[in-house]
């Protein structure tokens, strides 16, 4: 049976579906930023940006950009009424102190038990840069990863043990991918959902690890 991958927007919508009313959420740089576009208008969700913003709004209209008001990806954003600014130590206290409900990050690899690798490929020529990735990974009450299941070469990014340098140990609760949503548990991967037409066995073969349902 054939199946279709979730598009980037479908994947973002799938993540947004699980963010409850009233949650405080940090959306990581890159693909996770798309999730904001799919949070239903009638659901009040507070967005945190680690450079010191709570209650972050959408991108400004063209010509209205203010480069003193940017997100963690350095892109211009807006502030919702009720939003607040604060310094970096407070901003990271919000994370590390367990005050954020959910953080959504991209990843190079996630292990079956929730180890995360998303900051460095470890290649000698690569300039290492970590930003807030390690703080986010271990700080939020729940860390979710959003990524394509397979690399361009067809290798699973869900692995038994990460080969890339780690960002955090056992910190990922859930992985949203273009083919399936899975929970990382101390006992291994548990399938939450998968795209239509993809069997549990086929998914398990793609990942190369046993899955429970």
């Amino acid at each position, binding site marked *: 049976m054939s199946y279709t991958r979730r598009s980037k927007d479908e994947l973002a919508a799938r993540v947004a579906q699980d963010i409850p009313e009233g949650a405080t959420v940090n959306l990581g*740089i890159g693909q996770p930023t798309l999730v904001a576009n799919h949070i239903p208008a009638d659901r009040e969700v507070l967005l945190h*940006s*680690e*450079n010191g*913003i709570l209650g972050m709004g959408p991108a400004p209209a063209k010509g209205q*950009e203010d*480069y003193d008001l940017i997100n963690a990806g350095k892109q211009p954003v807006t502030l919702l009424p009720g939003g607040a600014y604060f*310094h*970096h130590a407070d901003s990271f206290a919000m994370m590390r102190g367990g005050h954020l409900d959910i953080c959504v990050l991209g990843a190079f690899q996630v292990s079956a038990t929730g180890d995360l690798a998303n900051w460095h490929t470890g290649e000698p020529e690569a300039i290492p840069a970590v930003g807030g990735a*390690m703080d986010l990974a271990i700080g939020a009450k729940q860390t979710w990863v959003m990524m394509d299941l397979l690399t361009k070469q067809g290798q699973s990014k869900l692995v038994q043990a990460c080969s890339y340098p780690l960002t955090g140990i056992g910190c990922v609760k859930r992985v949203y991918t273009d083919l399936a949503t899975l929970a990382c548990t101390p006992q291994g991967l548990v399938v939450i959902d998968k795209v239509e037409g993809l069997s549990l066995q086929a998914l398990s073969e793609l990942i190369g690890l046993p899955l429970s349902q």
Partner: protein
Amino acid sequence: MINKFVSSVAEALAGTADGATVMIGGFGTAGIPDELIEGLLAQGARDLTLVNNNAGNAEQGLAALLKAGRVRKVICSFPRQTDSYVFDGLYRSGQVELELVPQGNLAERIRAAGAGIGGFFTPTGYGTDLAKHVDGSLKETREIDGRMYVYETPIYADLALIKAERGDRWGNLTYRKAARNFGPIMAMAARKTVATVHEQVALGELNPESVVTPGIFVQAVVKIDRVATQAGGIKA
């Protein structure tokens, strides 16, 4: 009369010594004290250790200091940006040392220095390559209530350069939007803090309930005409 306003950047930065550790505020483009960085370039101090979130954009500011060979070491969380080629080149050729610190640990190490704390145990980075010293040995760890933590030390500075929005002659400061970022904690951590402001106000004009950095943390204030913050370093 206490008056922390000085008439020029040059006067504010006079006496900066070779080998100084200099904290520079800013995240991305917001809150970078461009005029003070230019002033430091003109002042001439060498062999500097810079503490900043990033490692410079294009060829201005931090990148200009780096390019001029004035920087021995950079302590930061995110040196790699789309236009950070000056740092990239120096780092790859071993001409500048890098201490990479997770952003929240960077902020807390700066805060700790300003607050007189001799270090702290943090869960951030535990079990990763950044829980190691430069020589590869493991940093001290401790289990507290069933969770593992890494010991991190304070980062002190000789000089902090920060960009604020409004200030009075006692050095009380407010900031603008996300340009606040590292300003308040860097002001606390340095022996000497120089702030730029776009508005110089009389004592009492800043709402005392809303002062963000109390003047005790600030040694010199320079008024600079407002220039709109420019885009830069955007990662798609």
